[in-house]
């Protein structure tokens, strides 16, 4: 029997660089409250959000992703030509096909790269990190650009009291490649499709196209909140155990920035020491789905709350329902 060769495996993978892009236009709560008959105070109390960014009319998931990718490449001291795989996590790319990853590769000149989009909504970035870690160590790819990018402002129902104020736009990226020691813990992930209605586009894309109506994001807030605070604590705990670390080893907790109240509940549940920094980027960014983790991590780094080499705990969770968590080292 002819044996198949395998690509040379490498022992360790980790983050080589991190970069982000935040659109210029700041949208404070006051701009949204009239249509939903609410108030700034209510929104802050409910979600912790004071303002968020919306992309300009001429900006897209791909253009924002390209900006974040370029920043990550610079941070990693690499060029686009060094990348052999682009994985882009999003749910707001304007085309069902071709992929946003392919579009971004062309924009930045990643001419040697394979390109694929990951559809895991708010868990997308953590899913993509897990996939990239595996790809690098198995020898499938050498340097992977993992990007989370969203233009959620395109699909918000501004009359929906439950969701109109939650979301924002932006992009974040990391370069993942071989590192001297392992920089990404095992990914703990899963999904529960029986709850697919909990967060879902309505109507679906094809129906919206035929009926010439807008497909908007809908969410059953209490159901999702209950799932997140009820299940993600255990997921995080398992990610720590899988990485062989404890809460005491973690410098920052970077959950998907879904809602400050979810973050607070998870922090209480996980019993982090006072020294652990908590990502609260949602206050100024809103919920940016797949972009939220890299954006939040970058803010912590810019604030000096984490530095190169620090261990952070990442957890993404959302539509699917789907979730993924892993420990990682700050590049």
């Amino acid at each position, binding site marked *: 029997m002819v044996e198949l060769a395998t690509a040379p495996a490498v022992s360790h993978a980790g983050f080589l660089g991190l970069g982000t892009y935040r659109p210029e236009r700041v949208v404070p709560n006051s701009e949204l409250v009239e249509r939903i008959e609410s108030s700034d105070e209510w929104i802050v109390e409910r979600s912790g959000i004071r303002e968020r960014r919306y992309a300009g009319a001429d900006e897209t998931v791909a253009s924002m992703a390209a900006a974040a990718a370029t920043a990550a490449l610079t941070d990693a001291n690499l060029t686009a030509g060094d990348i052999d795989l682009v994985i882009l996590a999003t749910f707001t790319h304007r085309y069902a096909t071709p992929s946003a990853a392919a579009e971004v590769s062309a924009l930045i000149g990643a001419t040697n790269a394979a390109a694929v989009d990951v559809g895991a909504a708010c868990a997308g970035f953590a899913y993509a990190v897990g996939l990239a870690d595996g790809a690098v160590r198995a020898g499938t790819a050498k340097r992977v650009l993992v990007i989370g990018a969203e233009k959620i402002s395109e699909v918000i129902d501004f009359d929906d009291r439950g969701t109109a104020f939650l979301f924002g736009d932006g992009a974040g990226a990391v370069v993942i490649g071989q590192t001297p020691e392992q920089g990404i813990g095992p990914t703990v992930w899963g999904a529960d499709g029986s709850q697919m209605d909990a967060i879902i586009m309505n109507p679906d894309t094809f129906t919206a196209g035929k009926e010439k109506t807008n497909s908007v994001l809908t969410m059953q807030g209490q*159901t999702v909140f209950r799932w997140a605070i009820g299940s993600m604590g255990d997921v995080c705990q398992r990610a720590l155990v899988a990485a062989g670390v404890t809460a005491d080893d973690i410098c920052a907790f970077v959950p998907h920035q879904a809602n400050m109240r979810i973050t607070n509940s998870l922090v209480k549940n996980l019993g982090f020491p006072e020294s652990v920094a908590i990502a609260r980027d949602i206050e100024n960014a809103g919920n940016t789905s797949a972009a939220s983790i890299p954006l939040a991590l970058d803010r912590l780094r810019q604030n000096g709350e984490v530095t190169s080499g620090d261990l952070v705990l990442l957890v993404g969770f959302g539509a699917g329902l789907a979730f993924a968590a892993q420990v990682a080292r700050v590049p």
Partner: protein
Amino acid sequence: MSQEDVLAGLAIIVNEIAGIPAESVKMEKSFVDDLDVDSLSMVEVVMECEARFGVTIPDSEVKNLNTVADAVNYITANQQ
């Protein structure tokens, strides 16, 4: 467990989660309107009630728990 015990236990839970004084948690009070316990805090209250009273309170039921009495009656009726 008697209704009085359930009410007392619920008052402690509401106090722990939402900071409302336990004495304010009376049967006729509305969680949202009178006690300022919003729908997200209600989820946390419900989850804590499940743990402490050994009941199951599905999402579909949570929407019906508008007053303290609604919650006390449901828990009392559904204890295992």
